[in-house]
């Protein structure tokens, strides 16, 4: 039955091939093929999950080797898969949420003439993402890694006729490539050190490696994770990626692809466990990003970009947790799964709002929508409560445990991380309440569209609301279900290991403080956005607000540090190539040409002068011969 594992990937891949090569004939039915492919993959995932449940803990991980992919000397890369407790969690998340979002897209993209292609790309994404989490070695993981990058590129730029979408897609791909450099070099380093880059072999050999080598590998993997998961300093692409259709933002840029970095770090736990310096870098990146994203999320008026800031921040939590080592891996993944539910739900809700509001994204033009979009309001509201960590909902369980784990790191480090996480929790509550209030409560601030008509908000069709409802249910229940008997922790422990650490604060204290922080965040937000009317035109704001609206100047910094020197260098090199190198080449030929035209003057065309030179030459020759002979 292990042959199901390749089929898991093959189903969406076949769907993608069919939809992208099938041509116009599939325009009318293509989206259902896409949904079917995703659903089949989900069904396979469920079957594999229950099989795995049925096996004893020690035999839960299975390997399948398809064929030898690249084989040169000692370099052996196989097309081989590994399905263990960690992979199956991802498989279910990807195919499950993926299927829901496929269904949602049927409604959302109903009027797009290129809907067939959209579903083809979505299927392609599923296949690549599954490959990423199922690969049994880093090189195959890399294929999936760039595969999801390609799918993300295609989907962000799906509306290619918009210059902004095409630019955002290119930016996402190139920033991700910077991260990929890290992954490439990490693989090379593993090969140089261990002669292999298969998970099992690298992890087995890791203890022999020097601490410096492991730290280097860890930092390179972190670079890769930063690119894919939009962590500081490679965070700049995620906000722009919201140019893509909203289902894409929900699936790729919230629930699954951007969490691949967390997967990579958790998967490589054997390396990070032995490289505390690399782990320190990971927690720093996580902590910085969680605040960075939260601050950006507070200032954005574009509902999708505010949610994107939130995604960045929540992934910061996960990276932070993963950087804590065995204390945090499990909670990183748990938060990843619950986040997958509630953030996908929030994005789909945002899509539903946009659907009803003529694709308006500016929250300042929303207001009072709860009566018009009751289902969206309810599902979005549940997602909201989940993300701010309202007691009993899923975010409460997962985020709370991360904050506890941060304190459990111990020492000054633990205090700093724990307090950062608490501040993050408060800010999360603030910006999410802000989104909630600006969108669903308060006065109507609707603006006429291009044709001068006011929007007529209406609830989305059932094909769209159904996935939202399912995800909302997941957002409510998942966390609770996972914590019954520590089910989730026990499930993952064989792969990631787990230790409790020793927190200076008791679990109850941390929970209490977290709830206080959350309430404070809600309260402040209510004071600002609930009690008084939201201005339609954004106020000037403080310097920090203005910077946060510009994503804390990330693009300005990148421009100043990279783009402008880069284009100057390119221009200089183009000049150098034409004038310098080619100048030398042309100079040599011009010199020879010039000399020749001087010498050419000797050839004056008069027969007698030619004859004279011949005569002179002969004389010289004869004279030389005679002289030589006499010597």
């Amino acid at each position, binding site marked *: 039955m292990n042959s199901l594992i390749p089929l898991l990937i093959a189903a969406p891949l076949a769907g993608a091939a069919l939809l992208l090569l099938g041509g116009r004939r599939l325009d009318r039915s293509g989206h259902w093929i896409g949904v079917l492919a995703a659903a089949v993959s989900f069904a396979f995932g469920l079957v594999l999950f229950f099989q795995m449940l049925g096996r004893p803990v020690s035999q839960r991980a299975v390997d399948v080797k398809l064929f030898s992919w690249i084989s*040169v000397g000692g370099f*052996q890369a196989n097309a081989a898969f590994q399905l263990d407790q960690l992979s199956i969690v991802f498989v279910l998340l990807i195919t499950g949420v993926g299927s829901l979002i496929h269904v949602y897209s049927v409604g959302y993209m109903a009027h797009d003439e290129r809907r067939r292609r959209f579903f083809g790309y979505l299927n392609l994404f599923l296949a690549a993402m599954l490959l990423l989490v199922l690969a049994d070695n880093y090189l195959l993981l890399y*294929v999936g890694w760039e595969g999801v990058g390609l799918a993300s590129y295609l989907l962000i730029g799906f509306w290619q006729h918009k210059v902004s979408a095409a630019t955002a897609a290119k930016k996402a791909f190139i920033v991700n490539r910077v991260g990929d450099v890290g992954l490439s070099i990490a693989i090379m380093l593993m090969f140089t050190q261990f002669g*292999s880059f298969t998970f099992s072999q690298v992890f087995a*050999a890791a203890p022999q490696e020097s601490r410096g080598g492991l730290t280097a590998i860890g930092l390179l993997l972190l670079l890769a994770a930063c690119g894919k998961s939009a962590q500081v300093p490679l965070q700049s692409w995620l906000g722009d990626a919201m140019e893509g259709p909203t289902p894409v933002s929900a699936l790729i840029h919230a629930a699954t692809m951007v969490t691949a970095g967390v997967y990579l770090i958790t998967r490589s736990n054997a390396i990070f466990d032995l490289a505390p310096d690399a782990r320190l870098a990971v927690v720093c990146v996580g902590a910085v990003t969680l605040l960075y994203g939260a601050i950006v999320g507070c200032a954005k008026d574009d509902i999708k970009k505010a949610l994107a800031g939130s995604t960045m921040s929540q992934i910061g939590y996960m990276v932070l947790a993963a950087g804590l080592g065995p204390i945090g891996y499990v909670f990183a993944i748990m938060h990843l799964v619950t986040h997958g539910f509630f953030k996908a739900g929030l994005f789909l809700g945002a899509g539903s709002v946009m659907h009803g509001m003529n694709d308006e994204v500016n929250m300042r033009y929303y207001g009072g929508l709860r009566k018009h979009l009751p289902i969206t309001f309810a599902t979005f509201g549940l997602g909201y409560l989940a993300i701010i960590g309202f007691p009993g909902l899923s975010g409460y369980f997962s985020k709370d445990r991360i904050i506890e784990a941060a304190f459990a790191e111990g020492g000054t480090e633990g205090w700093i991380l724990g307090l950062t996480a608490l501040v993050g929790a408060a800010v999360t509550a603030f910006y999410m309440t802000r989104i909630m209030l600006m969108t669903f409560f308060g006065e109507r601030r609707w603006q006429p569209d291009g044709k001068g008509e006011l929007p007529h908000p209406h609830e989305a069709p059932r094909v769209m609301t159904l996935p939202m409802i399912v995800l909302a249910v997941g957002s409510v229940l998942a966390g609770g279900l996972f914590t019954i008997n520590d089910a989730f922790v026990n499930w993952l422990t064989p792969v990631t290991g787990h230790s409790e650490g020793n927190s200076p604060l008791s679990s109850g204290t941390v929970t209490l403080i977290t709830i206080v922080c959350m309430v404070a965040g809600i309260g402040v937000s209510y004071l600002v956005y609930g009690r008084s009317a939201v201005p339609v035109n954004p106020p000037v704001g403080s310097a920090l607000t203005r910077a946060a609206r510009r994503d804390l100047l990330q693009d300005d910094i990148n421009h100043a540090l990279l783009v402008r020197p880069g284009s100057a260098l390119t221009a200089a090199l183009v000049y150098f190539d034409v004038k310098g190198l080619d100048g030398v080449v042309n100079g040599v030929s011009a010199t020879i040409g010039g000399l020749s035209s001087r010498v050419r003057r000797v050839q004056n065309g008069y027969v007698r002068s030619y004859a004279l030179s011949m005569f002179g030459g002969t004389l010289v020759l004869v004279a030389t011969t005679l002289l030589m002979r006499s010597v």
Partner: protein
Amino acid sequence: MSFLLTATCAVPAVGAVVTAALPAGTTEARRRTSRATALGFSVAALVLAAVIAARFSPDGPRYQLTESYSWIRAFGISFSFGVDGIGAVLVLLTAVLVPLVMLASWHDAAPDSGDSVAGTPAPDGSFENNRRTQGFFALILAVEAMVLVSFLATDLFLFYVFFEAMLIPLYFLIGGFGDRAGGPEQARQRSYAAVKFLLYNLLGGLVMLAAVIGFYVIARDQNQGTFDLQALTRAIADGKLVIDSSAEKALFLGFFFAFAVKAPLWPLHTWLPNAMGESTAGTAVLITAVVDKVGTFAMLRYCLGLFPNASKFFAPGILVLAVIGILYGALLAVGQKDIKRLIAYASISHFGFIIMGIFAMTSQGQSGATLYMVNHGISTALLMLLAGFLISRRGSRLIADFGGVQKVAPVLAGTFLIGGLATLSLPGLAPFVSEFLVLVGTFTRYPALGIIATLGIVLAALYVLVLYQRTMTGPVKASVSGMPDLKARELLVAAPLIALTIALGVYPKPLTDLVNPAVADTLVQVHRTDPAPVHPVAATPGGVTK
């Protein structure tokens, strides 16, 4: 003794003569006959190349299907042919690409496109115009024949003769046939490009000739007066032929200079952007995907095989040049305004990778470099031919003249994107396998160079995606609004290349199986072994398998 290798080289040669001798004329029927004839011969060569690959057994001796006919006995020169794994894959590449290039250039040599070097269109019924189609296709076949001889020759002199002789048909292809959008200025540019190409490569070739003669003289003094490659390498390995160190270095440089010009290695690359920019897309593919490969192929076979010690001595320096070339070519590609020149600079970057792989002297590096030659041939052919289709529709090579093509010609845009993704070595496509092998192979011996070269993958993404974005996306420009999508013939060109790119990316084993033994033999010649892992892991299930 079989005649397979001779036949493979002879078929396109005969084809060239036959095509050139077909009745002249500008009527469509006449031109169709000549195109079909040429295509037929190139397909026949493809069949023979496939037979070579099928009959080659990777476990056998390095050179197989050998043939030898005496030529100039006094100097030990003979028509010797033999194929090794590296030669076999390159012969296949050549044989696959030439028919596709012909198909893609179907209308590129039409009489009305005739703007002569002098800048004035040749008059109707003139010799030049009448023979244009025949000439174009005959020249392509001539190039193919000479390239095949270069890949299959196992005689140094024979190799040299054809290495040089292929410049002649190429000179005429570059100088005589260009973009339809003519004009005296462009004709002048083209004539400049052709002369530059010829002189640059001729210079390299003459330096090599001197080295060839010098090498022969040294060998003859030690009673090894032959040009037979196998005999020479054997004599070097057995210590019967000992070249003193400084002479070996000088001879190595003589050979290497010629190959580095042809490859082209930075800073000897400046002829390539001109030649590729001014010629037709088909000719550009022929230059970069096929002919330039002779240069890198010869580095691997002749420089390393005949001068192992000098190769090792110069390897670090050459690697530095190669890494500079990788980044330099990529940066210049980013700065180009002309689609074809952009692809040319991208190729310079890729040739840096190939040369780096060869001189890293590890099995991954060299196998990767050989695969890179094949994969670069396929991916560049795809990108360049599609760029040619795009350019012929708009009559301009400037990136700025395009925009929004994706909306009006989605298939063209989609295939172009695949070509671009192959060029930036997306994992899952063929070039990734080779690029990664080259990088790994370099990294194991020269970590710093490996890391710097890896930065090239970011730049590759940059130039490919910027090109795609500016030409294909955004609002539809008025000038491209009526642009037709790919025609059946053009799709027939792109489809096999795309299929190969994907197939060889997922399952490169058929190629690696052919190449690995030859590379292992080359490493033995230069007395190099792969660096061993620092902490090797014990073989476990799912791990090292042969």
